[in-house]
């Protein structure tokens, strides 16, 4: 029944799924926190920013303080190329101060492409008949995880689900447990997925509590667009996703359920990027205000071609490469503590350029987004089984080598959420610039693990120089006892032990 998606009564499902009382409790004076008129008013008010004021705002970002909406509007309106250079330099400095020199890598794992929604821009929309529909069984999910952990060497996944009864909260719970149960022998040690992040539809508090119980990593939901009118147009009536506020407050519900890492995102290209940036900031600020915890990460995907989806070609809001770089810089300045994810949607040359800016913190590699694609081992992209076309299908090893050549250390660290560096505690460490020490220590250890288990000699050679440089820097950054412990752990990993962390 579930595979025949046309039989699903979307409207009645919407009525069953959406709990108005789990929206209303967060509203202020009956309104949500996105005031479209106010956002445009701010953007139009600051059209000629004073450079002195701009530099004051940059100093605030550098002190790892979330900006006010008016401050972001000022930065968005900067036109002077020299000021932009200062802004990029500040963004780079912030990233280094909060996360140091590491780039965390992960992979997406798509578990199903059934969907009750009908979003105009999405290849998986209900009425798109060219897509081959499939939901992985729990055994198939395990097989995918075995390839990811045992052959590629990933430790962290973002697991993706369409919105459909066949892939609801209970299925998500079972897949999380299945992925965590995988343990695969590798060259020198063993491979495991240590952090399962989830990209899924908005859920109720009770459903989110269920996912919390099995150790969900980050709960990631993108608002797609914060502009109310555009949102309503591209998410047709009669679908669950049409309900703007049900989606807007899903991170609030997650935090209330005790899932203390939540992730925001916008699909750039649906509406004006300047407005969307303001929306992201309002969202982060409302989470901070109500829970004392902001977004663990922010993602900034751009619309990509999808099978039988003409909307993508028709949108007038496509973000150019130059504006895209500005978007990334502005997110870093507006919400300085947050992790920032650049994905393989972008082509290799753009990824290289953006990683070179030194602003983002995470990226994916060896990415396959077809259902069952890792274990099927298909090498060509197949549009009828993918949500969209990815731009950079390079292997993890290729990406790691490029990062190393650029001077970055690849990190597979998943330590924080396994020792209580979560929620308000991680916020505190991030804001005080202390988390970077953990990032650096754990990057060295997890990179060493990966090199020993998966790397070619060629990659090892480039990577070893990066490790040596990082260890040398650490010597001057941490107390002697901590450095000695690092050396001890490094040696133990060399001897085949795994999963040692600070």
């Amino acid at each position: 029944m579930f595979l025949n998606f046309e039989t699903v009564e979307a409207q009645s499902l919407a009525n069953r799924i959406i709990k108005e009382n789990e929206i209303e409790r967060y509203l202020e004076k009956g309104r949500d926190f996105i005031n479209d008129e106010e956002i445009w008013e701010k953007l139009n008010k600051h059209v000629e920013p004073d450079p002195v004021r701009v530099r004051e705002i940059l100093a605030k970002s550098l002190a790892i303080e979330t900006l006010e909406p008016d401050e972001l509007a000022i930065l968005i309106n900067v036109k002077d190329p020299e000021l932009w250079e200062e802004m990029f330099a500040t963004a780079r400095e912030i990233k280094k101060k909060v996360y140091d020199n590491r780039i965390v890598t992960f992979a997406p794992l798509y578990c199903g492409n059934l969907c009750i929604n009908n979003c105009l821009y999405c290849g998986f929309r209900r009425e798109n008949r060219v897509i081959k529909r499939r939901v992985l069984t729990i055994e198939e999910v395990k097989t995918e995880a075995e390839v990811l952990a045992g052959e590629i060497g990933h430790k962290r996944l973002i697991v993706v689900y369409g919105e459909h009864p066949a892939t609801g909260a209970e299925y998500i719970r079972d897949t999380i447990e299945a992925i965590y149960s995988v343990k695969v022998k590798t060259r020198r040690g063993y491979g495991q997925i240590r952090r399962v992040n989830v990209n899924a539809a908005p859920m109720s508090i009770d459903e989110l509590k269920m996912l919390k119980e099995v150790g969900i990593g980050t709960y990631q939901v993108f608002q797609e667009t914060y502009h109310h009118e555009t949102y309503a147009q591209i998410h047709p009536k009669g679908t669950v996703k049409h309900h703007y506020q049900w989606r807007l407050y899903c991170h609030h519900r997650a935090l209330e359920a005790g899932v203390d890492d939540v992730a925001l995102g916008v699909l750039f290209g649906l509406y004006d990027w300047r407005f969307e940036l303001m929306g992201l900031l309002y969202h982060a600020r409302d989470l901070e205000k109500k829970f004392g915890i902001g977004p663990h990460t922010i993602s900034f995907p751009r619309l990509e071609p999808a099978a039988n989806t003409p909307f993508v070609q028709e949108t007038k809001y496509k973000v150019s490469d130059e504006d895209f770089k500005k978007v990334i810089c502005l997110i870093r300045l507006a919400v300085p503590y947050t992790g920032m994810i650049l994905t393989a949607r972008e082509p290799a040359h753009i990824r290289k350029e953006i990683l070179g800016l030194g602003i983002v913190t995470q990226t994916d590699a060896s990415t396959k987004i077809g259902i069952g694609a890792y274990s099927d081992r298909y090498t060509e992209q197949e549009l009828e089984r993918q949500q969209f076309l990815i731009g950079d299908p390079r292997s993890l090893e290729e990406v790691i080598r490029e990062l190393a050549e650029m001077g970055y250390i690849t990190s597979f660290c998943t330590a924080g959420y396994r020792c209580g560096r979560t929620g308000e505690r991680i916020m505190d460490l991030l804001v005080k610039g202390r988390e970077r020490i953990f990032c650096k220590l754990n990057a060295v250890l997890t990179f060493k693990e990966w090199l020993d288990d998966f790397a070619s000699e060629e990659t090892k050679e480039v990577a070893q120089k990066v490790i040596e440089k990082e260890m040398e820097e650490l010597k001057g950054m941490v107390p002697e006892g901590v450095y000695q412990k690092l050396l001890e752990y490094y040696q133990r990993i060399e001897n085949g032990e795994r999963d040692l962390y600070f």
Partner: protein
Amino acid sequence: MERETFISKFTALAKRIKQTYGVNLWLVEVLGKRHSYVAGHKEDSFLPPEPIYLNDRFAVVSNEWEKIPEEERKQLISSLKEDLLK
């Protein structure tokens, strides 16, 4: 014991330990692989974190357990375990 009461008691204990030995303690809720911060210190000495499990739901984490005299450490853990049973 009620969750909030337990957290208050832990917070007071952690404060005393910090004052006496300079050691950071934090309470976490164990949820599969996730150890979620609940209460206690936010500072860190950068040494590897070591959890001591109170039951299958809660653990106390520190990276300097050895600075607390063994007897006192045992007493602290045992008292917290008892509170969780109340």
